[in-house]
């Protein structure tokens, strides 16, 4: 390609800076919007697929009716015949529904560790209401608040581990939970059903939680078999889970779900005798969720008042959310593509008219020795530069735009690759429109070009 011919083209380009700048901006906006739209849609699909792959979305959750009035009800309510109470023993209905593979209870709980810092905090708070010092600890020997010396003695015991961590959130589960969530122990073991009602508190730690308690990854492995001193008593570590890839699992602990016993208020009326729980039933094939839900509803209705039972399918709710977000993503991508198309057509139109204005010049260049190919390369270079520079600018616009749209739709993570793929796709589309005028302007016989006005 002739360097002098290039100078002709680029000096003409420079002479129309305003027009060129507006074209650049139009391409940037079209590319930016398209890339952000594509990224939004792709991230929606990716996160939706990841979400539905989670065992949580193979579950049917059975609970009892809750009303806003319940919020105003006293904490301790009298049991009545009309009250529907679900217990862990109700999990047995799963045996009669073939599509249900696992049945379990998963209930939030926490461990509050006893250490120097916690004791100092408690001591600074002084006696509790009524002048009573908090001494109630369960299965803890010796009970009561420890002095610093006593704590040091505990720390010296080989089977006790005092952590600097204040508290840890976890889940009380029945054993099938681990099978349903495909969780394996990396060190030690998981607990069995028979250990659910044992007198000692057993815990299985998530991989990150173990490191958090022990301080290092190496020390984390030595926790198995150790007793952790908590305000509720000792918690014995029986196993540490292999990393699951799910942050909430890796950062927490699991303890056997125990059916809570009755509570008798001192000298008062009898308190709650049974505790209501949420029952969870997991299927192997998500397509069977609806039939399994119907089966469970029918079976539970034989023993419970159906109008107070709530059988929910979180997957259906999640699918609705994904479908809604997908619809919004498709709409945004469609509008962005329309903007890109309009920008590209304008680029094409203006490059075409620039070529037409230069048609006689093309004839002269051909007379001086330019082939059609060199004319094509000459004009195409203008389109390529315009399209590429516009796409780079568009990529810079697309990043904040996609972040805004994704956070508006509640997407928690976004992939830069989707954004780059969107930019690349939009660039190619725009490039086609930018090069087409070059093809047309170069595909003209020299004599015809010479005759141009």
């Amino acid at each position: 390609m002739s360097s002098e011919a290039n100078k002709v083209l680029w000096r003409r380009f420079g002479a129309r800076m305003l027009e060129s700048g507006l074209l650049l901006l139009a391409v940037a906006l079209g590319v930016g919007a398209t890339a952000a739209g594509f990224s939004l849609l792709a991230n929606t699909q990716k996160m939706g697929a990841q979400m539905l792959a989670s065992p949580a979305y193979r579950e049917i959750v059975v609970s009892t009716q809750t009303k806003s009035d319940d919020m105003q009800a006293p904490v301790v309510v009298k049991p009545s015949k009309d009250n529907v109470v679900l217990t862990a023993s109700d999990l047995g209905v799963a045996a009669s529904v073939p599509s249900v593979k696992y049945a379990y209870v998963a209930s939030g709980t926490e461990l509050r560790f006893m250490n120097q810092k916690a004791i100092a905090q408690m001591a600074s708070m002084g006696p509790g209401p009524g002048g009573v010092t908090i001494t109630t600890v369960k299965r803890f020997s010796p009970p009561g608040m420890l002095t610093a010396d006593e704590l040091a003695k505990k720390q010296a015991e080989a089977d006790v581990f005092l952590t600097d961590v204040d508290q840890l959130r976890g889940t009380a589960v029945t054993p099938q939970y681990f099978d349903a969530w495909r969780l394996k122990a990396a060190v030690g073991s998981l607990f069995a059903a028979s250990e659910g009602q044992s007198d000692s508190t057993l815990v299985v730690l998530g991989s990150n939680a173990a490191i958090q308690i022990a301080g290092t990854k190496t020390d984390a492995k030595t926790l198995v078999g150790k007793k952790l001193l908590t305000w509720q008593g000792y918690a014995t570590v029986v196993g540490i889970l292999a990393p699951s890839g799910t942050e909430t699992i890796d950062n927490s602990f699991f303890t056997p779900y125990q059916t809570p016993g009755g509570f008798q208020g001192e000298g008062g009326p009898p308190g709650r005798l049974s505790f209501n729980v949420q029952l969870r039933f997991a299927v192997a094939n998500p397509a069977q969720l609806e039939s399994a839900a119907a089966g469970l509803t029918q079976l539970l209705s034989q023993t419970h008042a159906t109008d107070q039972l709530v059988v929910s399918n979180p997957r259906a709710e999640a699918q609705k959310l994904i479908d809604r977000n997908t619809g919004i993503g498709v709409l945004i991508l469609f509008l962005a593509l329309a903007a890109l198309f309009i920008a590209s057509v304008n680029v094409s139109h203006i490059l075409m008219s620039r070529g037409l204005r230069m048609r006689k010049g093309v004839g002269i260049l051909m007379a001086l020795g330019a082939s059609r190919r060199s004319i094509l390369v000459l004009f195409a270079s203008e389109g390529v530069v315009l399209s590429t520079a516009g796409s780079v600018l568009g990529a810079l616009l697309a990043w904040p735009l996609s972040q805004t749209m994704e956070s508006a739709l509640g997407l928690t993570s976004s992939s830069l690759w989707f954004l780059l793929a969107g930019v690349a796709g939009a660039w190619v589309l725009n490039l086609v429109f930018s090069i087409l005028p070059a093809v047309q302007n170069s595909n003209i016989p020299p004599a015809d070009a010479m005759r141009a006005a």
Partner: protein
Amino acid sequence: MITLNKLTKEYDLVGTKVIALKEVSLTIDRGEYVAVMGPSGSGKSTLMHLLGILDTATSGQYLLEDYDITSLPDREQARIRNKHFGFIFQSFQLFSELSALENVMLPMSYANVPLKQRKERAAALLDEVGLTDRMHHLPTMMSGGEQQRVAIARALSNDPDVILADEPTGNLPSDKGEEIMTILEGFNARGVTIVMVTHNPDQGRRARRRLFIKDGELWRDENTMAATQVALHV
């Protein structure tokens, strides 16, 4: 050097066939100075376009140095135009974005001449046409005569065998036209073949051979120096 055998050019204008040039046969030898004359629309420009391979004939044969170049691929046609022909146009056709020097350098870049050599040769040619002190001026800053001298330097940049000049003085006052004719005749004296379209009878008489075109046909072929005339149509 150039031989045309029954060269015909037809155009299809909205279903109507228009014959722009009809079975023209002629030979132009190396070093000749030929004037092509005739009324407007007679086919002079078409003949020049065919001679410069800016257009292809509908039928007939075009031999350049005994090679048939009637129908060649575009790239080969471009190479021949670049190496063998220099073009001078009535309205100069310089690129207004380029300086005089860059305009002259342009055809050499298509011949892949290195930049340094391009600059040296372009400067030498501009010096030869008397524009030493105007090399870096843009065409818009030059008079018509100066622009046409730049165009002549550009036409000669790749040392062509033939210069095809389409009314080179048509847009110039007579004194400037005379300057251009003198420069062209100087190059012809050094062996460059010149084929020039002109409406000016005086300039036509200065050529050693005159071709008269009428209605697309070669009407008369006159050798003014030998005082021989060949009337092709009576």
